[in-house]
């Protein structure tokens, strides 16, 4: 089989599965739906590993080719095509593997749901869309994938569409993403305007020629072209990857079923923005302004969203805020030009965060859809596999030496430390203190769920038991990479030539290279890590969590009472939602209402539409009377017509 056929089969297999499960769901039944989609995704997972082997391990050249020309307009070709290199191959493996795990897990999680086939159809469709996004070789297809994953995300957040909260959440996700996509689309339009093509390779090749070009967005202000393009593109990434201030939709997206929280809102879709920036590294490297912008936004997200995780009691929301914070880390890495470190963290995070979500999901099933951690506790003895795998996930998340998260997060923190961009100092402080916060909320959740006294009611306790194998097997399979993937990837990704030419870093920004100067093997890197502040901050966080939630359980309430205003700010999530509802929600509705009354009802409906319709109807009524039905009227009309034509044609001459 030719490599090209493999590339083509990878996105199409899940699409076929999705179509069969979606359109013929009733005919093939529940088992049929999960078999057909799992086979589709499993096929693409296996083929993705083949591609990974081909490009990353065997070091084959990047593939860049078009599959189909959709349209040609004004000499600009709109293509469907693939660009497969180390970056793409890595994303493909992560996406398909996590997707496969989630597919299997879903059999257990959605066991009793009436929308079983619909759910499988959606997640397979998502896998297709995400693969199209990462495999794109041009901006148009990127945008297609970008919108398609957004659509499926919308559908899945509102999966339980009878719930008002789910409808609110999916609408919110959709609207906030529109705000981001608006920037993204403008960025793509700017690329098209200045480069005249949407093809990645051509754009990247021509980029150096346009350095120094400026554009006047606001009259009188000359802005660097690349700053404008990159910031616009990153605004798109801010929506999709939930960066402050467009992060507000992600916590609410937890209204969707847990498997999609794991797949879409933790492991894959939300990292699309990070991937996109890495893919666009040849453009971002040309604008330090844009890099600083990315750095600052990422730092704000990483620090402040982590804080919110401290006051949440809903187990899924804690993980959601943790995801926000980790996405902030990735953005910081991008800003510091450590694209490789960000991609590394993206990969490790996909595994351990999916693991944590699926673990939380397993707990939620066992607790009969109870998500409040204040009614959990002591689950360790009932659910040993979930307990161990969650522990592994948490250790990976806080960056415990040896676990995958340690290498990737340390890579980012050290890279920022070496960055000389404007704002790098603040970002360094933010990500460093973020480590303490991460450890604190992670183990707060861990202790409140699995240790301590059992706070659930009697009925729930009697039914507590370990999840079925379709749930535990994915947990175990995700726990393995959460531990070992760091060992495999750390050296080549951070210090080696893993990504080859897929990622471009200007020499003056190359923070990872500076980091690499002091690198003497993985063990030394680990030992150094134990000496460094991040490890001690993490350890302090775990200890604090243990002290507050295991030892002195009376203390948290007292602390809250002391710092009531601060606590309120956190519970209110800094007032973003309130502000958005009031300003954007209320404002647009007010404006819409005004325009509707004045513009639509009075002017358009009253004057233009109904007015002209009335005139036409009036004429129609009048002219109709001419059609009297009498023969002589008709003949008379003809004679009059003849005379007028004669007068017109002959009389004039």
């Amino acid at each position, binding site marked *: 089989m030719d490599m090209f056929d493999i590339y083509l089969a990878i996105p199409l297999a899940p699409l076929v599965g999705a179509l069969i499960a979606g359109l013929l769901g009733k005919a093939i039944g529940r088992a049929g739906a999960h078999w057909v989609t799992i086979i589709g995704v499993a096929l693409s997972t296996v083929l993705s590993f083949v591609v990974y082997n081909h490009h990353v391990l065997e070091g084959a050249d990047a593939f860049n080719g078009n599959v189909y020309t959709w349209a040609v307009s004004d000499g600009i070709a709109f293509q469907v095509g693939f660009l497969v290199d180390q970056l793409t191959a890595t994303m493909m493996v992560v996406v398909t593997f996590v997707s496969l795990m989630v597919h299997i897990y879903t059999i257990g999680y959605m066991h009793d749901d009436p929308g079983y086939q619909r759910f499988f159809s959606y997640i397979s469709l998502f896998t297709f869309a995400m693969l199209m996004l990462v495999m794109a070789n041009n901006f148009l297809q990127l945008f297609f994938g970008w919108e398609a994953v957004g659509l499926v995300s919308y559908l899945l957040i509102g999966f339980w569409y009878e719930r008002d909260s789910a409808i609110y959440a999916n609408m919110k996700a959709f609207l906030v993403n529109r705000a981001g996509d608006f920037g993204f689309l403008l960025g793509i339009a700017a690329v098209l305007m200045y480069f005249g093509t949407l093809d990645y390779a051509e754009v990247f090749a021509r980029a150096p020629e346009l350095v120094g070009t400026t554009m006047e967005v606001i009259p009188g202000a000359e802005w660097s072209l690349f700053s404008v393009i990159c910031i616009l593109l990153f605004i798109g990434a801010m929506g999709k990857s939930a960066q402050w201030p467009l992060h507000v939709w992600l916590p609410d997206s937890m209204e969707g079923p847990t498997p999609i929280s794991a797949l879409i809102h933790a492991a894959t879709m939300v990292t699309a923005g990070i991937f996109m920036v890495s893919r666009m590294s040849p453009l971002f490297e040309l604008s330090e302004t844009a890099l600083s912008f990315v750095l600052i936004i990422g730092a704000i997200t990483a620090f402040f969203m982590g804080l919110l995780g401290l006051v949440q009691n809903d187990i899924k929301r804690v993980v959601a805020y943790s995801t926000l914070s980790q996405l902030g880390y990735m953005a910081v890495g991008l800003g510091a030009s450590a694209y490789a470190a960000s991609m590394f963290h993206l990969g490790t995070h996909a595994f351990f965060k999916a693991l944590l979500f699926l673990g939380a999901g397993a707990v939620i099933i066992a607790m009969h859809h109870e998500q409040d951690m204040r009614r959990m506790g002591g689950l360790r003895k009932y659910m040993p596999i979930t307990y161990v795998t969650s522990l592994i996930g948490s250790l990976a998340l806080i960056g415990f030496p040896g676990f995958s998260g340690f290498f990737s997060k340390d890579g980012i923190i050290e890279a920022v430390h070496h960055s000389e961009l404007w704002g790098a100092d603040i970002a360094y402080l933010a990500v460093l203190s973020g480590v303490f916060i991460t450890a604190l909320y992670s183990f707060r959740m861990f202790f409140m769920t699995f240790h301590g006294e059992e706070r659930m009611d009697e009925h729930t306790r009697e039914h507590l038991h370990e999840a079925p194998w379709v749930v535990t097997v994915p947990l175990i399979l995700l726990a393995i990479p959460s531990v070992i993937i760091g060992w495999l990837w750390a050296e080549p990704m951070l210090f080696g030539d893993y990504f080859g030419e897929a990622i471009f870093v200007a020499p003056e920004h190359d923070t990872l290279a500076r980091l690499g100067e002091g690198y003497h093997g993985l063990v030394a890197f680990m030992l150094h890590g134990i000496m460094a502040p991040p490890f001690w901050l993490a350890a302090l966080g775990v200890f604090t969590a243990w002290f507050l939630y295991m030892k002195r359980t009376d203390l948290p309430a007292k602390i809250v009472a002391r710092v009531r205003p601060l606590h309120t700010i956190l519970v209110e999530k800094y007032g973003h939602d309130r502000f958005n509802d009031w300003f954007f929600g209320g404002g647009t509705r007010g404006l819409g209402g005004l325009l509707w009354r004045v513009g639509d009802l009075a002017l358009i409906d009253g004057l233009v539409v109904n007015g002209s*319709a009335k005139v*036409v*109807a009036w*004429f*129609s*009524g009048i*002219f*109709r009377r001419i*059609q009297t*039905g009498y*023969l002589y*009227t*008709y*003949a008379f*009309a*003809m004679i*009059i*017509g*003849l005379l007028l*034509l*004669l007068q*017109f*044609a*002959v009389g004039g*001459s």
Partner: protein
Amino acid sequence: MTDFVAITPELFLLTMACVVLIVDAFLPEAYRAVTYQLALMTLVITGGLTVALYPAEPQVVFHGAAVVDGMGSVLKAFIAGIAFFAFTYSKDYLRERNVFKGEYYVLGLFAVLGMMIMVSAHSLLTIYLGLELLSLCLYAMVAMHRDSADASEAAMKYFVLGALASGMLLYGISMIYGGTGTVDLGEIAAVVASGDIVDDTVLVFGLVFLVVGLAFKLGAVPFHMWLPDVYHGAPTAVTLFIGSAPKMAAFAMVMRVLVDGLEGLQADWQAMLVILSILSMAVGNVIAIAQTNLKRMFAYSTIAHVGFLILGVLSGTEAGYAASMFYAIVYAIMSLGGFGMIVLLSRGGFEADRLEDFKGLNERSPWFAFIMMVFLFSMAGVPPFVGFWAKWSVLREVVAADMVWLAVVAVVFSIIGAFYYLRVVKLMYFDKPEDASPITAGGDLQAAVSINGLAVLGLGLFPGALLTLCVAALAAS
């Protein structure tokens, strides 16, 4: 001998029409279907012969009486095809009303012969001959349902006004003959082009009368008055025949007279056609809104479409003529489908020609509601249906002829026109049916209407072939 070969289709049709007439006279009532099948077979073979004899070069035969060329052959083949469908649609309708007689088919075949003569005429007299043969057949067909007062009244009006129009046409012909000394279109064109005629007043005078005669046949305002009454009063089976193929013949007549014969007077007839076109689009689209009867609404819609059809001719270029020809063919197909749908829904004692009769059609038959929607959208000029391409191609030629204002006027009127088409779609899809009885039409009728609808959709998706055919046909004439 080659002269006879060139008109083989017409000769065959004439022979078969006589054969059908005689066979029908001796057939017992129970075997009436034989007449119908013979008529269909005749049309198929006539169409086949026309296609087989498609000429590479225009060929003038019988001393300038007739011409066989690309435009004529294409139109004749389509006329035979459209008539074939019209006959298919009418069978059940006539049978249910007890007028399933041989006359309909014999008259129909003679009418087709009249149209073919008009299409291949190369002399003003031949045109007149074909026109009269067609018209007389149509008068009789309208009156065929003798018990219906509406039909008789319609036939009477049609006959009287048709006679008036014929008189004017004939008067115009005599003027042209007086001015040029010939009725041969080629010779007329040569005389006009030679510049020997210093004062062309008499020619323009004759031209006005000719245009009036043509406008009457097309149904352009203000010579349209017969059209709503005839469409409404005639049995639907006859209406669908009158409303489809003869429009192509009328288009051919316009081309023969104005382009083949009097192209030298283009400046004069162009101005007249502009007036007729605008009036037709305005009156047709506006008055259609006030109609509650679907046949009457389609009649006004025809008037509006005629306005559009004229646009291509008046642009005065080869491409414009091709666009108009495309429009005429497309219009005949759509109009056939629209009336065919009325026939499909009707049954003995129920005409299904009021707007209310289409309420909730989607609940009764989603498939035919869809087909009807295709026809209506196509007539309204909504992409991707073929009606859109028809409008688009004539508008493009009008713009190319530097008459942007006229294109804007046309678009405005077609937007107004969209209203009454969409109203029917709304009735079909959003209102409750008043009558939930199932559709009882025969399988052949259902299949034919479905093919008709799918043709409108298919031609809309792939309009290139038919457009290219029209351009090629005009290039070969």
